[in-house]
């Protein structure tokens, strides 16, 4: 397979990672480091890789900061090395992203020996089991052991179990799926790679899938990762983790190095040394920190003729663009200092500082850590509820123990989820015992210069940096992290954080447990924003709500505005009219003849029951007992603190039956609010509330000719006597059963026709046809707003902002004065501040210059010559050019407004001030002479 790296063509094999393919081709220098600009090679074989980062792909698929150790080779892959910082694609991302919800009884994280065994044990009980593995292959560390090693027996057993798992109906296994976040309530997020970078996908198939999982029980089997040691020059290309070298050898057939030195604090690196030795690599020496290691591994190494240097450490790695030699010495006592130096030539240095259990997932939900003596890493003190650990992440490093711990954990988890089966039998793995490690976290170079002893290769942080932090007075590990930035890189310091803690502990003389590890947070590895957005992009970003009449508006070329999630026509331009021109025309048409508007988005709540009146009396500021059946009334709703919250018309359809309308944006909130009072405070009221917003399409026919137009479509008598203002009539309009009310939001004679939503378009069309003789004009929200403003009617959210009471709006007439009526928010209206006479009140404004329109949102002052900061006394809430008035006008909230009639206020704008006269808010037809036609 061929791929491109750093502009050159390379070859690799199927199954290779970018890292293994590059190592196979003899690559040592991978790229440069972020701050110190030093050459860096490949250090690890998995998620812990600190150096080998690439920018993948091209154009819209260009993806920053991917670990070469996790990228699979596919034909045509394009990769370029990065120095710790990536770049964003300039083009749009063409990929698809999917999300799925999943539920399971037992979720097993990681398919190493522990995880496979656990999933098998859980799955065989019939529990719904999910086994998720980040790697492309199952097996974990066992993928990296030589065929002849004891682990191989375990592998055979596990292969059998995997075959069995495949027969379990309720167990699913997914590779290339990384569990990234653990949250409350057993909620788990995992990301599956379905199309590998560079791979051509099938049509419709998403590149990534975000799994949103609810797990009753969690088994963490995420394994352990090998830790390096910090010494001078430990960042040179060619210095790598011993386990990684072993993985490259046994899994990928890549032998790292001709002449290697192994530096270890424990037995695990001996297997790497022996296997490399057998593969033909010269092991110059095994440098072991332990004074007298005697395990089987050690004797095997000695038998193989390998020089084992006990009680020793590597203090310096030398070289230019790669390691050439090391300085080795004997460790002095318990310290990190060496003496009796010796130099060894080599082209590789394989390091094992010990193994760190991977417990980040549990720590994300607050599990506390403890330093584990022998393993020298950190473990979990107590697993969070509904979770268990198994295998290396639990500090269990022997395969034999893992193979009994895994099934036990799986079984326990299944049992806790309510599933049981016969106890499992696990194989005996003949495995030599390991000897205790001697943890060494860093080694001081003979010259004492700590500035090239790297603790975090990714972030270029050194032991010297940690020392500076501690020297500056910092003792908390979180401070050290922030001072040095160690652990804050793309892999979140997987190879770094324990060493930083250990160095800090040594420098401040505190125990490691007390120093602790820096916090772990989601995600486990960086996740692409797009993958988390999933389908919620473009058209699917958020619902677009439309009325049954929407297609007509679209055909007529309406310009829409967003009101909450709804699309509402703002205006209907003819030819190349702009907003202003269209609105003037629409307004003129309504005032002169007739217009029609789609009001279907208004919220509608059906209120029914013997206590309906009492209920409405409590939620609205006015009273409803004297509202006649067949009539409607305008009402206001306040929040508890007395501020206007929503408004609408309440229709009485029967003695115990009402329909309340709400604003478009307020529909859901008002219903929730009403239910809250009903269910929590007034459960004794017998009232049922039902949302019927979309049952009805609502069409308002407005203007002096509205009666004529409607009259052509209905038998309902429409004259003033039979059908007075604020009346409601039932009948048939355009052959469809309808409820018609005489409500006017414009001051004109108007009828609001409500029909079943499914017939909304047909009725709209019929009205449109019927109105042709008068040139019926469809109008949008902007015209609606002008018409109502001319009449001084307010819009909640425009004249109000959550700080305005009905009294401020001059609507005392809608506030019940009856002592017995205790509506919500009433008490607040007489608090010291809400009762102040100099509050901002609704007024009308007439600009001195009839042609000048005040900008909505303009602030008002009394003295335009005052220097900044000026004393503001109010602001313009609505402002329009009016055909009916032949001039511009505005509504405003103005301090002591009702006392300022006739005064002049100023709106200081950039470079000018607009002067306007204060008037009452009702500017058009104050006598309401037009509404009866």
């Amino acid at each position: 397979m061929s791929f491109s790296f750093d502009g050159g063509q390379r070859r690799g094999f199927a199954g290779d990672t970018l890292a293994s393919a590059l190592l196979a081709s003899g690559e040592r220098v991978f790229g440069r480091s972020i701050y110190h600009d030093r050459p860096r090679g490949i250090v690890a074989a998995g998620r812990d890789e600190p150096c080998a980062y690439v920018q993948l792909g091209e154009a819209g698929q260009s993806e920053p900061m991917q670990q070469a150790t996790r990228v699979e080779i596919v034909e045509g892959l394009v990769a370029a090395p990065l120095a710790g910082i990536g770049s964003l694609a300039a083009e749009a991302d063409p990929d698809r992203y999917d999300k799925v919800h999943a539920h399971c009884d037992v979720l097993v994280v990681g398919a190493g020996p522990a995880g496979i065994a656990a999933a098998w044990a859980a799955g065989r009980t019939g529990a719904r089991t999910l086994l998720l593995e980040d790697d492309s292959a199952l097996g974990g560390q066992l993928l990296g052991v030589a065929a002849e090693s004891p682990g191989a027996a375990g592998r055979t057993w596990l292969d059998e179990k995997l075959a069995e798992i495949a027969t379990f109906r309720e167990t699913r296994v997914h590779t290339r799926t990384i569990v990234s976040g653990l949250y409350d309530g057993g909620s788990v997020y995992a990301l599956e790679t379905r199309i590998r970078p560079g791979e051509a996908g099938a049509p419709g198939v998403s590149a990534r899938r975000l799994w949103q999982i609810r797990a009753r029980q969690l088994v963490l089997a995420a394994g352990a990762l090998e830790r390096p040691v910090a010494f001078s020059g430990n960042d040179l290309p060619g210095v790598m983790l011993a386990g990684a070298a072993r993985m490259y050898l046994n899994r990928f057939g890549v032998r790292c190095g001709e002449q290697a030195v192994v530096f270890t604090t424990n037995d695990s690196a001996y297997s790497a040394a022996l296997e490399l030795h057998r593969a033909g690599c010269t092991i110059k020496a095994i440098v072991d920190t332990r004074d007298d290691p005697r395990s089987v591994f050690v004797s095997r190494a000695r038998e193989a003729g390998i020089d084992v240097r006990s009680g020793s450490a590597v203090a310096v790695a030398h070289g230019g663009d790669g390691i050439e030699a090391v300085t080795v010495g004997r460790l002095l006592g318990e310290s990190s200092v060496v003496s009796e130096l010796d130099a060894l030539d080599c082209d590789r240095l394989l390091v094992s500082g010990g193994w760190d259990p991977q417990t980040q997932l549990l720590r994300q939900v607050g599990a506390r850590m403890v330093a584990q003596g022998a393993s020298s890493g950190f473990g979990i003190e107590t697993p969070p509820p509904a979770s268990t650990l198994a295998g290396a992440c639990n500090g269990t490093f022997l395969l034999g123990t893992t193979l009994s711990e895994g099934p036990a954990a799986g079984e326990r988890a299944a049992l806790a989820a309510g599933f049981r089966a016969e106890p499992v039998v696990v194989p005996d793995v003949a495995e030599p015992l390991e000897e205790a490690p001697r943890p060494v976290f860093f080694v001081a170079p003979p010259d004492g210069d700590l500035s090239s002893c790297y603790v975090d290769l990714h972030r270029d942080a050194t032991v010297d940096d940690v020392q500076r932090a501690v020297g500056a007075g910092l003792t908390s590990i979180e401070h050290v992290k922030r001072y040095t930035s160690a652990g804050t890189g793309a892999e979140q310091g997987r190879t770094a954080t324990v060493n930083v803690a250990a160095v800090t502990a040594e420098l401040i003389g505190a125990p490691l447990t007390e120093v602790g590890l820096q916090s772990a947070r989601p995600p486990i590895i960086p996740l692409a924003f797009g993958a988390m957005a999933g389908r919620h992009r473009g058209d699917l970003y958020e619902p677009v709500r439309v009325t049954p009449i929407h297609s007509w508006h679209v055909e007529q070329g309406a310009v829409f505005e967003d009101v909450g999630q709804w699309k509402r026509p703002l205006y209907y331009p003819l030819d190349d009219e702009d907003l202003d021109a269209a609105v003037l025309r629409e307004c003129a048409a309504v005032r002169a003849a007739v217009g029609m508007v789609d009001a279907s988005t208004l919220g509608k709540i059906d209120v029914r029951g013997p206590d309906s009146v009492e209920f409405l009396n409590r939620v609205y500021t006015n009273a409803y007992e004297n509202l006649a059946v067949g009539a409607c009334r305008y009402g206001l709703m306040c929040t508890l603190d007395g501020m206007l919250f929503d408004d609408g018309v309440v229709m009485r359809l029967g003695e115990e039956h009402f329909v309340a309308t709400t604003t478009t944006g307020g529909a859901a909130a008002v219903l929730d609010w009403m239910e809250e009072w009903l269910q929590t405070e007034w459960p004794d009221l017998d009232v049922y509330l039902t949302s019927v917003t979309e049952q009805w399409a609502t069409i308002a026919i407005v203007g002096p000719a509205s009666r004529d137009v409607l009259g052509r479509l209905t038998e309902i008598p429409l004259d003033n006597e039979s059908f007075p203002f604020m009346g409601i009539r039932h009948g048939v309009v355009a052959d469809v059963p309808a409820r018609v009310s005489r409500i006017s939001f414009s001051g004109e004679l108007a009828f609001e026709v409500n029909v079943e939503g499914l017939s909304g378009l047909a009725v709209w069309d019929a009205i449109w046809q019927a109105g042709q003789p008068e040139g019926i004009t469809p109008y949008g929200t902007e015209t609606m707003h002008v018409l109502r403003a001319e009449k001084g009617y307010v819009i909640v959210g425009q004249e109000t902002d959550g700080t305005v009471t009905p009294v401020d709006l001059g609507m005392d007439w809608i506030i019940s004065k009856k002592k017995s009526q205790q509506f919500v928010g009433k008490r607040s209206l007489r608090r010291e501040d809400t009762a102040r006479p100099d509050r901002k009140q609704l007024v009308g404004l007439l600009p001195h210059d009839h042609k000048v329109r005040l900008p909505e949102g303009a602030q008002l002052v009394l003295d335009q010559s005052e220097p900044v900061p000026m004393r503001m006394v109010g602001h313009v809430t609505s402002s329009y050019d009016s055909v009916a008035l032949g001039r511009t006008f505005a509504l405003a909230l103005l301090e002591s407004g009702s006392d300022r009639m006739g005064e002049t206020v100023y709106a200081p704008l950039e470079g000018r001030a607009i002067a306007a006269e204060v008037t009452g808010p009702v500017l058009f037809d104050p006598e309401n002479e037009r509404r009866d036609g």
Partner: protein
Amino acid sequence: MSIEHARADHFEHPSELWRASEPRASYDVLVVGGGGHGLATAYYLAKEHGLTDIAVLEKGWLGGGNIARNTTVIRSNYLWDESAAMYEHSLKLWEGLSEELEYDLLFDQRGVLNLAHNLHEVREGIRRVNANRLNGVDAEWLDTDGVKEFCPIVNTSSDLRYPVLGATLQRRGGIARHEHVAWGYATRASQLGVDIIEGCEVTGIDVAGGRATGVQTTRGPISANKVALVAAGHRSVLAEMAGLRLPVQSHPLQALVSGLLEQRLGCVVMSGAVHVYVSQAHKGELVMGAGIDAYNSYAQRGSFHVIEKQMAAAVELFPIFSRAQMLRTWAGIVDVCPDASPIVGLTPIEGLFLNCGWGTGGFKATPGSGWTLAHTIATGEPHRLNAPFALDRFAHGRLIDEHGAAGVAH
């Protein structure tokens, strides 16, 4: 592609920071809470009022609360006069703060855009710009093209679900590096003689005869003439120790960063309808805030759906973020007042002072809040700037409602 040698900035902190102290038996003033506001309070008490017998008590590691977790948006373009005065005072202090503290705070006045996506937001944006101008706060209104010009990577296409109709711009707004602020204040306060005591949790407040006389801590009792509670999300719990009930609720607020990226975003962008606020830190990570989690919590973590929503919004507004990588998420505990404005000043208990309710937006106020609280503690009277932010406003009703106009309250 210029990825070859793109390199991030590297910042070297000073080699001497604050001095760690052991608690003494008594102090003149105790500041409870070693976050930005507490440290600023101590610093201004020492610097402006010459008081130095002060200890800052911090239960965990200094600066590890919300100041370690915030998205560092700094602006002063608030709607109401009271807020504008307070935040503008703060912004003026920011403008000289790196020099004053002799610590590079990476304060960068790169401009803050507040996008408007519907006509309502346009109206409110213009209203705020006008109010800001008359209050002496710099503010501009940009139309869609202006937004595109100022921040080319914002998606200003009219096909957007909620298209960008315009934005307010405060050019003097920007970002600063959060930990530098905490460490800068701590270091200077320490140099002026303030004791900074970490790992010292206040567990009780001693009140005798209607006045505060000291505190109980995990490191023993400490007596004092004056006690200031400046503990952000934890303030209700603390206040209750003194028998005070406060109108604040504590919620998780999450934030996140991407991995390091070459600089592409030269300003701060905030959006209400498409809920995003984002900036790119000097190192190169995108710093992004999420919405507040609905429920009360002290667990310092939130729910993932909040993050998902955030990511969708980010990709919607910035299509080129689609393949940016979310590196780390975290949460703070924010204390929110019913009117989204803080409480700074006196309490009914003599000698007990309060600074709370900064909610989702108090980082920007750190200097101003510390400065006014220091004034209040030193003189026993609120400063003109913090007088409107008194506790009793909830009784008489003179709230300072910053919900509406702020949209995204950061």
